[in-house]
């Protein structure tokens, strides 16, 4: 059965956890810019955590469902509704045959992830269902959704059916994941960074500005990267490095002196000096940055970054086990 995009929204794409193994051919990782948020939403509806969901940017999406489904969403502070019923972030909800749901008006942050039981069953291209907007492949015909698009859904699993039955009366589950997981957007975010390989090639004043001043997110930002206005950093004289691998989280300083934070759709190699890298757990916050947001960078150690990531993974494992009774 299908879901229909009655309204497609500003920029909505099908995304899973991304495409690996093809960087050597210049293919980006892609996938949900906040992979953790998509994993959580998938777990809430009884999906495999790598199932494909929808990544909504700023809202404007209205979906209609042809059969009964479990749905959960995570991400920024949005207004999600089904008819007159408000759909709170992080709570699994039963969507009945013929029902519609909409997601509107990002108040904080700019992206949300919608997981539907069965997952969005678009063809797998190069090992993933994620939309690659630069290469024009994957997802729905390699592009953002359009009005009227039909999106195939996989079958509801046995697990999902059990929870749907349990929720027949109340429709919306009372339980939800930890708040930071389903709603990572912050009003005045601080992104924790570790040093990049060219950190030491910038002078002290530049490094102090980088970690001390506020930077403003430029409107010229997308799934490839976030550009910052604000204090210009003194570009390093060695701007013409030999290109080497870059990845989501890498912060480059191009000759303009305005930092660029790379996100999931970034190119696979780059030649600008890398001053720092946003740590993996804070990519959830980075994925919510919108034009005008004021951001600070704070240095942490590599050991801190690993500890935070391992802790989050352990908590997710605990959460996964805690969910089990709802699905059995």
């Amino acid at each position: 059965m299908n879901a229909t995009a009655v309204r497609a929204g500003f920029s909505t794409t099908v995304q899973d956890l991304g495409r690996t193994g093809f960087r050597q051919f210049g293919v980006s990782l892609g996938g949900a810019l906040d992979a953790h948020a998509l994993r959580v939403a998938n777990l809430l509806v009884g999906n495999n955590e790598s199932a494909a969901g929808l990544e909504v940017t700023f809202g404007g999406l209205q979906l209609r469902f042809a059969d009964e489904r479990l749905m959960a969403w995570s991400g920024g502070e949005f207004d999600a509704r089904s008819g007159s019923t408000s759909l709170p972030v992080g709570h699994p909800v039963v969507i009945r045959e013929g029902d519609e749901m909409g997601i509107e008006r990002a108040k904080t942050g700019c992206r949300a992830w919608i997981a539907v039981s069965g997952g969005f069953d678009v063809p797998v291209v190069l090992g993933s269902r994620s939309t690659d907007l630069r290469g024009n492949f994957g997802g729905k015909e390699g592009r953002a959704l359009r009005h009227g698009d039909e999106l195939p859904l996989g079958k509801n699993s046995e697990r999902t059916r059990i929870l749907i039955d349990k929720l027949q009366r109340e429709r919306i589950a009372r339980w939800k994941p930890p708040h930071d997981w389903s709603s990572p957007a912050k009003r005045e975010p601080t992104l924790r960074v570790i040093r990049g390989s060219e950190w030491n090639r910038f002078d002290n004043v530049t490094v102090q500005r980088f970690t001390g001043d506020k930077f403003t997110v430029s409107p010229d930002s997308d799934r490839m990267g976030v550009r910052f206005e604000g204090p210009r950093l003194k570009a390093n004289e060695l701007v013409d490095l030999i290109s080497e691998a870059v990845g989501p989280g890498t912060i480059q300083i191009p000759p303009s002196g305005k930092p660029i934070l790379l996100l999931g759709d970034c190119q696979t190699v780059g030649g600008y000096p890398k001053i720092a890298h946003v740590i993996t757990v804070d990519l959830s916050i980075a994925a919510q940055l919108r034009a005008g947001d004021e951001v600070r960078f704070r240095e942490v150690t590599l050991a801190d970054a690993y500890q935070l990531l391992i802790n989050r993974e352990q908590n997710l494992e605990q959460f996964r086990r805690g969910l089990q009774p709802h699905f059995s």
Partner: protein
Amino acid sequence: MEIVPLGDSALIVRVRKNFDGAPDEALNAVLATRRLLENAHLPGVIELAPAYTTVGVFFDPVRVVASGAKPDEVFEWLAERIREVILNANELRADRMETSPIQIPVCYDAEFALDLDEIAQHAGLGAQEVVDLYCASEYRVHCIGFTPGFPFLGGLPSKLATPRRSTPRKEIPVGSVAIGGAQTGIYPVQSPGGWNLIGRTPLRLFDPKKDPPALLRAGDRVRFRAISRDEFERSAM
């Protein structure tokens, strides 16, 4: 050799310090290192990304820890394994390049070769001399990047090196063959770009329905063959 972190989920193995002096030697060492690391199947390693003088190693720290690394020493643990693999290898033997160069047909028709005059002027040559010189040389893929399937080719005759355009074009047609500084390359998907367009190939350099999806990979040798507009139209169908 130097191993440095690239954030918390990747690292870079710097195989050679310099590129300009001996680009082929650097490439061979990079490819050999890639091969060694591929065969080593190190725990938690997801994929390898070779480029010019380096191999990027992308990994899942959670799986590295599950394989015995202390949570605060993931990078050091993996870097140590990588050093062992490389130092234990008797020599960095490059993949043997027995195969002949891959032929890329290029039409140098004025409609495709938008910057051929600039390139010729810069080189102090005639347009046909530029094409002849370009086709006479053998090239090697040093890196795939920028867009899916975009090959960065070394081996451009130094006379043909042409600075990038001061204002990049917003949309470069698929298949455009171009010169940027001392490198040359081919635009496999529509994208913006600042290189000087010298011609266009009817070959498809990137096809996501194929595995591998790219026609070229790092290490491949390449030659360009001039074709007529007729041949271009026939092959492009």
